[in-house]
């Protein structure tokens, strides 16, 4: 039996949420000292 589109979207939504988690987990947290030096953090 073919799943209705809404059910397929719901499954797809879970997949997308998982990918979003993966992308956020890859966030390379720089020290704010590095940001300050490299990009002028707090220079204005």
């Amino acid at each position, binding site marked *: 039996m073919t799943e209705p589109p809404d059910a397929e979207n719901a499954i797809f939504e879970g997949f997308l*949420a998982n*990918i979003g988690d993966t992308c956020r*987990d890859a966030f390379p947290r720089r020290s704010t*000292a590095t940001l300050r030096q490299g990009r002028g953090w707090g220079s204005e």
Partner: protein
Amino acid sequence: MTDHPVRSSSGMETALEQRCREWYEAHGQAVYGYLRFHLASAEEAEDLTAEVFLRAVRAAGRFDPSRGAPKAWLLRIARNALHDYSRRERRRRHVPMDGLPDLRSDAPSPEERLLWRETVARLLAAVAELGAGDREIIGLRYGSGLDTGETAALLGVREAVVRTRLWRALGRLRRVMET
């Protein structure tokens, strides 16, 4: 807001810098994830995330908590920064399909980890094929991890509108991925 220097683990910083550092630690991931869903490479997303927080430091004195949470305010800055960046770059978005080395995976085998990276690359490439409105709502909801209520508040629409737009965008994204 008064901006007195205060002692921190990284030396002297102003109260505004300290506040922005706390925001960076709490919401840097959400900003980065939103940008990552729009940009071709991790490096671009990383650089633009740094720019967002630089802008936030400069504007922090104007932040008004009665008008919304810091996360929403930062994502508004991210949307503007992305808009400016896209105008500057004017080059076609392209997500390389040779894997995304920035992505970590808990998959047990190297083959499965490679497969997952390729899956994420395919998905991000498909998002890049969508129209601006679809990319925006998918980036906010799944890239930054906002719920539909937060997304609605940020876009200034009702939550039901977000649900409908999201559902349609998901359908279009699925179709792009199937082609």
